[in-house]
């Protein structure tokens, strides 16, 4: 007699069926969740990757939000400064007009009133708020930065501070998002309000209107240079946004690669498992029909 075989054939068949049921379960889980794995232990290295990937992705999302928040306030600041530029150009034209020797006092007074009006307009623009915060107060955003003042020679004092803010738009990458009011409007020697006031005074008193206009022209030029900060930063933000969008796409496709189930292979392994299960069931069904006792009647 040869080697004795385990008489309990069910034991072997059940072990096989058990394994197949596990495979079937895994495939079903993958199909229903669309994920390659659903537990840490299925692929620990991938889960570690996934966590780091999600951390990075959460940062990138936040950077994108920061960019868009900053873009809004900077666009507001930029367009405000653009209005100031228009106003200053008008004042310069008026100064050129006022330096014409053929004008009489009354003409000059009228021009002085117009320039004074432009000064008030610039003052109002310098106090522009965005979502309740003053745009040109440095970081003292709740303090009105520019107020009329008789004690100041320019007629305007600056109440903000000289600080600026930076906002994070990438890993370790911060972008300065504002210029203080004193940098833009009242740098010493290039004070916008002082130059406008100088022109007004010259027009009113019959002083050196031409010299005051030249001075205003110089202040205007410097102002325009300062203003490019916003334009430059905005275009940097635009390219950062494009980059971050790319990165976000990259991260989500990386995540898909890490944990997305390959449906083709999952379905084919499911079908294979089903076939094998079917065969095992049939085999198990056959076993009960075969013992010698059935033939001993």
């Amino acid at each position: 007699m040869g080697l004795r075989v385990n008489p309990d054939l069910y034991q072997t068949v059940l072990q096989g069926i058990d394994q197949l049921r596990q495979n079937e379960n895994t495939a079903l889980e993958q199909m229903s969740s669309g994920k390659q794995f659903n537990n840490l232990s299925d692929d620990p290295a991938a889960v570690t990757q996934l966590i780091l990937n999600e951390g990075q992705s959460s940062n990138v999302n936040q950077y994108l939000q920061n960019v868009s928040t900053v873009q809004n306030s900077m666009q507001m600041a930029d367009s405000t400064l653009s209005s100031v530029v228009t106003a200053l150009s008008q004042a310069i034209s008026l100064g050129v007009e006022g330096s014409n020797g053929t004008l009489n006092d009354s003409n000059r007074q009228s021009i002085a009133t117009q320039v004074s009006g432009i000064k008030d307009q610039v003052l109002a623009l310098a106090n522009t708020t965005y979502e309740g915060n003053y745009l040109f107060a440095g970081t003292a955003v709740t303090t009105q930065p520019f107020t009329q003042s008789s004690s100041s020679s320019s007629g305007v004092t600056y109440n903000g501070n000289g600080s600026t803010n930076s906002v994070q738009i990438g890993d370790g990458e911060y972008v300065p998002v504002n210029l203080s009011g004193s940098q833009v409007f009242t740098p010493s020697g290039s004070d916008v309000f002082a130059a406008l006031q100088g022109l007004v005074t010259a027009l009113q008193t019959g002083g050196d209107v031409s010299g005051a206009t030249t001075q205003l022209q110089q202040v205007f030029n410097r102002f325009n240079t300062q203003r490019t900060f916003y334009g430059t930063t905005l275009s940097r933000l635009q390219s950062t946004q494009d980059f971050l969008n790319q990165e976000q796409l990259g991260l989500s496709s990386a995540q898909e690669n890490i944990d997305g189930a390959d449906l083709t292979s999952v379905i084919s392994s499911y079908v294979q498992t089903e076939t094998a299960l079917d065969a095992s069931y049939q085999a198990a069904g056959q076993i009960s029909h075969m013992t010698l006792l059935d033939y001993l009647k």
Partner: protein
Amino acid sequence: MGTLFGSLSTALSALQADQTAVQITSNNIANSNTPGYDREAPILVEADPTNINGIMLGNGVNVQGVQSIRDNVLNLRLNSETQQQSSLSTYVSGMQQVEAIFNEASGVGLSSAINGFFSSIQALSANPSDSTLRQNVLNAGGTLAEGFNSASNQLESVQSGIDEEVTSTVQQINGLASQIAGLNQQIVSLQGTPQGDGQLVGQRDEALSQLSSLVGTSTVSAQDGSVTVTTAGGSPLVVGDQAFQLSTGKDAATGMTQVYSQGSNITQKISGGNLGGDLQVRDQGIPGLQQNLDNLAASLISNVNAANAQGYDLNGAQGGNFFTPFTPSTPGSNQGAAASMSMYITDPAKVAASSDGSVGSSGNLQNFTNLQTTNIIDGQTAQSFYANFVGGIGVDISAASSSLDAVGLVVQQLQNQQSSVSGVSLDEEAANLMKYQQAYEAAAQVVSAINDLTDFVINTVGAQASGT
């Protein structure tokens, strides 16, 4: 010279032997599904022959005893693999409960709370005086703290759930030890008697196998047929007919159930079986994870607090604590940091975003966001420490599962082997039944033939003698 009556008694011995064999077959069939039952076979020997004038004449057949078919070496191997299997299986199922707490693969865990906290800070940096954004920072900080609280509490509740199993497992071990001691006594008293130890050894094997699934043991067979059972750590469970009961008691410091043998604490020496697996999760797996979680919480608390203290709040005052500072109960240990983590500030204005005291400054928030890229714990950033922590749980379970699969295959194979040695095959029993039935019929035929012969002798020879 042989006699008719001699033949009759020979045939009778055959009838008796075949009856016994049929009864054994019937018992095998009856027990074909009894766990631990080893198939039996009759030990048939030829009866001592009679020497009649130098001619040796056979005297039929004797049933010398009943033999249980088993392979003791196989049983011992199976028991030792079973110890490993149930230890691993208990370990894996315990750690799977832990895995569920940190199942980042399905989006459960602290990762999103950590990300959410830093996102809220970054959002605030774009508009530091916004009260909604400030409130969001407080909420995100609270969510992070609650995340740590809940993870720590869940770890603890898995741990105490496992602790509850220890007492009941020890009771089962004690029950089996008593059973084995009782069987030892019966087996020793039956040694050398014609009925043999019967199925008692089989029953004892079954009890030993059950014991193996509960705790790692080592078994030594004695000359008198008894077995001595000790735990893998050497504490006696059964010696001869005596069982040594294990006892349990709570440790005053940890509140965890300890196992005692003869008055000494053997908890740390226990390995193998459900008990070994449970203790491994309870005393090694979970405390290690709890410690890492506490270290991470403590590091975040102190670093975030330091960042907040460097800035100025919305009212221009110097910043203070952000989270409630953690004071270790034992110096150098962060035990309890995760469970007790909570917000210190409740006023959104107290988030120290400003670097110079002005309301619109967000300069100090860089000290917060820099924490994301700074190695603040074990030379790693918080996020990668956490990722490795979670990955470590996965690796641990996956390694234990692989070992479990491997041991499972060995156990299956050994069970298969054991079953092929000791299992009842109905085919075989049917064949045996036929064989014994035919032999019985043949022996009965012999009796009938002798009856005819005797009849013939009485009726023919006797009638002639009486002259009829």
